[in-house]
């Protein structure tokens, strides 16, 4: 991957973060430094993985806000991967991210650059989700354990076996909160074949393409919002000004609601969105407009830069865009784990995207 592609990936990942984690600026700084040190990240097509290749599945767990105070350290990101290789006795051939959205998009690049192994062009969410079991691997019934966790001190813990994927999340979340709400994790190793059959393929390429479209539009002084819509077959749901934000940090998540008053063609209307790290449900004038697992992206109306649930604030002028979720997430098995009911809403999934509902 060229340094320029990494810049585009960061922008695209911000949009796909759907509010949970924004533009991964700190991780991007880390990668720029690694590139200067002659340690670039290499991308591998999942089709090129050997069936029995061993792939590390990495992600940060915790509150995105904490990474704004405690800067990401590549050596920390590497630690659970080393723990997992020691635990299973098998070295890794490649690394991939749990989620393409937000800061976790760049995590495997740091690990890959440090270890000299390629990054698989795939992820398990096609976006960002707040909980560990909200992944295509879990939807397909693959266990998340063993699950290795390391904090920024010298604390290391492995969930060796778990009663369910949800128990991995529950135990892991508790430990993560104790450790200061930011931990590097490595979930159960996957074979090349498992990745091909159960991951969402091509996510990194897609995010680079999306980021590149935004950058091109900015350069040509065109609307970056339109560029996002065109690149991802998205829908423009709303334009307005942030009028109110209620936000609280509970049980290791940032939860709340954002209210946006419309202008231009949406003058007189009001958009409100609930969030749990990521935006989960959106209403226009009290009517359901969009919900998980479809992506709800709140973008700066001028720059097209993604706005996160921890940075959204009064007065921002924003465009609300929805991108369609991967078909695996909108299948019956997928909706059981990442649909509105999984987030505590007694709602059936409906989608504004043609062919998704």
């Amino acid at each position: 991957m060229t340094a320029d592609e990494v810049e585009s990936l960061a922008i695209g990942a911000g949009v796909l973060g759907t509010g949970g984690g924004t533009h991964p600026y700190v991780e991007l700084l880390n990668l720029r430094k690694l590139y200067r040190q002659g340690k670039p990240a290499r991308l591998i097509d999942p089709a090129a993985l050997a069936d029995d290749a061993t792939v590390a599945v990495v992600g940060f767990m915790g509150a995105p806000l904490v990474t704004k105070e405690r800067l990401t350290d590549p050596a920390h990101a590497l630690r659970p991967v080393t723990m997992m290789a020691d635990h299973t006795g098998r070295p890794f051939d490649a690394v991939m991210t749990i989620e393409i959205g937000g800061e976790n998009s760049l995590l495997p690049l740091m690990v890959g650059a440090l270890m000299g192994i390629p990054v698989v062009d795939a992820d398990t969410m096609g976006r960002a989700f707040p909980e560990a079991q909200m992944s295509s691997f879990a939807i397909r019934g693959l266990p998340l354990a063993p699950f290795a966790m390391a904090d920024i001190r010298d604390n290391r813990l492995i969930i060796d076996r778990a009663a369910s994927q949800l128990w991995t999340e529950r135990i892991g979340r508790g430990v993560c909160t104790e450790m200061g709400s930011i931990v590097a994790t490595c979930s159960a190793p996957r074979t090349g074949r498992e990745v091909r059959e159960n991951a969402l393929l091509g996510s990194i390429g897609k995010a680079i393409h999306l980021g590149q479209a935004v950058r091109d539009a900015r350069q040509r002084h065109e609307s970056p919002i339109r560029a996002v819509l065109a690149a991802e077959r998205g829908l423009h749901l709303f334009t307005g000004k942030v009028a109110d934000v209620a936000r609280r940090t509970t049980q290791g998540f940032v939860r709340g609601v954002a209210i946006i008053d419309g202008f231009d063609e949406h003058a007189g209307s009001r958009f409100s969105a609930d969030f749990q790290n990521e935006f989960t449900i959106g209403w226009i004038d009290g009517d359901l407009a969009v919900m998980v697992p479809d992506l709800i992206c709140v973008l700066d109306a001028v720059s097209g830069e993604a706005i996160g649930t921890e940075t959204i604030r009064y007065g921002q002028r924003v465009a609300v865009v929805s991108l369609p979720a991967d078909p695996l997430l909108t299948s019956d098995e997928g909706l059981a784990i990442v649909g509105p009911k999984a987030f505590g809403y007694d709602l059936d999934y409906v989608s504004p995207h043609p062919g998704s509902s």
Partner: protein
Amino acid sequence: MSPLREITWDDLDALALGTGVLGTGGGGDAYMALLNCRKLHRQGHRFHLIDPADLGDDDMVAEIGFMGAPLVVKERLPDPAHCARPVRAMERYMGGRFKAVMSAEIGGENGMLPLVVAAVLGLPVVDADPRGRAFPEMQMSGFPIQGLPLYPVTLSDVRANDVIVTRSASPGWTERMLRRVCTEMGSMAALCRPPRSGKEIKEKAILGTVGQAIRIGEAILGARARHVDPVRAVIERAGGAELFRGKVVDVARRATEGFLRGTVDIDGHDGDGGRCYRIDFQNEYIIAWRDGEVVVTVPDLICVLDAVSGAAIGTEEIRYGQRVAILSLPADEILTSERGLAVVGPRAFGYDRDFVSLHERTRS
């Protein structure tokens, strides 16, 4: 190597009573573990005690115990297969087999648990432990006090969840992480603490504590049979001091942060008439005042016994109207050393005062 000593059917009753006394109010009631031991015994399992001196220097020993709220164990009965799971998980993690098991604390239920696990695994129980009593937190143990790391540790719940702490920044961090995991799991989990070599046990454990607990229990049973005072019998056997006799007049108890905390007030009778005692507890009894003056603090053992039966009364079951005797037994010198007091002295429990003891010690 001398032959293993069998822990007989009669020894089981004595051990349950003795671990209660050494539990100093906490460590859980050993009754459920006693029932498990009796059942295993009826099924043909036998329990064997191994003298630490008979361990090979390189023999690996599993140090085991329950973590959590003793109250939960009263609802969710301990299951021998569950208790053995973290030991198996540790064997897989370290890639070797254990030669024996040892209690993480002789006080309370954890004093009997190794028998249950030993029977399931077919291993002997080492006649030693690292505390000589019970303590509420993981790092409050003779091994961390003497500088041995508190990792790796394996922990299993009653479902199918197994967790391994492979490294921790300090013994306190092991406690902090696993307390949280344990609370998530329902406040009860079985633990296997870091594997210890025979050499480490011989040099750093408190030796002979299982035998000591059995002898304390025998003293109580013997006194009951002879209709003499069982409290006196405990003191004669364990070398402690009787502090007070009285009636419980008030108990303030609250379950917080995974611990049972509170205060007991006891009014004196007989020779202690007109005086009163107050004792604070965090799972175990921590500090005792007589008429407002501190008389005894951790790590010395504060034992509250039923004045008639001699059975220990735990912090989760002590209640208004009970007639009790308060005893102090001397803590092992590992715990009363300078390094020991930093980890298990009054300040470690949040009291801004020095260790107070009624017992003579040769200062090192």
